[in-house]
């Protein structure tokens, strides 16, 4: 059994990566966000579908995001009906790297998957996957 602080493999298809990229690019300069639905196994998270949701935060949406609780409930119920789980969330950093911010870390739920879409200086998108484990964010391995 993998130790908690070891990286896990986060499986995210090319199609889902493109969907996140399109939503993140379309939302610029504000942060885009959504939920990740799939299954967790030891050492692995398989993302089977993603949702694109409104950024609900009342703070500055250029630098913060929040998912409306009612949106989470709807996605949770849909996942439950398919015997799946909401296993994480994704959001974009329109002006920054894929590293989790201090706010990301402070508000992270333990062992949940957080995918971050960032943009390089040339405008191309990059993705990173993270989990909050033992009071720190550890980077996971994204694969298809």
């Amino acid at each position, binding site marked *: 059994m993998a130790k908690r602080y070891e990286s896990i493999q986060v499986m995210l298809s090319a199609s889902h990566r493109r969907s996140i990229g399109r939503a993140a690019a379309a939302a610029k300069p504000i*942060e885009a*966000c959504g*939920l990740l639905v799939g299954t*967790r196994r030891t050492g692995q998270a398989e993302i089977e579908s993603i949702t694109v949701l409104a950024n609900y*935060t009342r*703070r500055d949406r250029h*630098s*913060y*995001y*929040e*998912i409306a*609780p*009612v949106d*989470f*409930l709807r996605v*949770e*119920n849909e996942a*439950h009906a398919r015997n799946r*789980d*909401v*296993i994480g*969330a994704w*959001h974009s950093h329109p002006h920054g790297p894929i590293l*989790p*911010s*201090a*706010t*990301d870390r402070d*508000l*992270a*739920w*333990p*062992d*949940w998957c*957080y995918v971050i879409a960032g943009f390089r200086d040339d405008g191309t998108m990059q993705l990173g996957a993270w989990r909050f484990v033992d009071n720190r964010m550890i980077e996971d391995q994204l694969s298809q």
Partner: protein
Amino acid sequence: MKNVTIRIPAALREFAGGMAELELQAVTAGTALEKLAERFPLLSQRIVDQDGAVRTYVNIFVGETNIRDSSGLETRLADGDIVTIIPAVAGG
């Protein structure tokens, strides 16, 4: 007493022994959370504060209704209700 189902999303299951849902008897949302606390104190600490109020970064839904938009912890339950604990998802 009403028979209800408490649904626990994956983000909170580590505090509930990995359990996804459980059935219990309660009259209000508040008594349901008290019974949940008896079984899973670590989960309860994430949901309510020392005064028993629901924490700002957690939402409790009875069916499709957020109890914050209803009668809070006094929200009455009916047989067959599903009580879902929804954690806030936010960052920057």
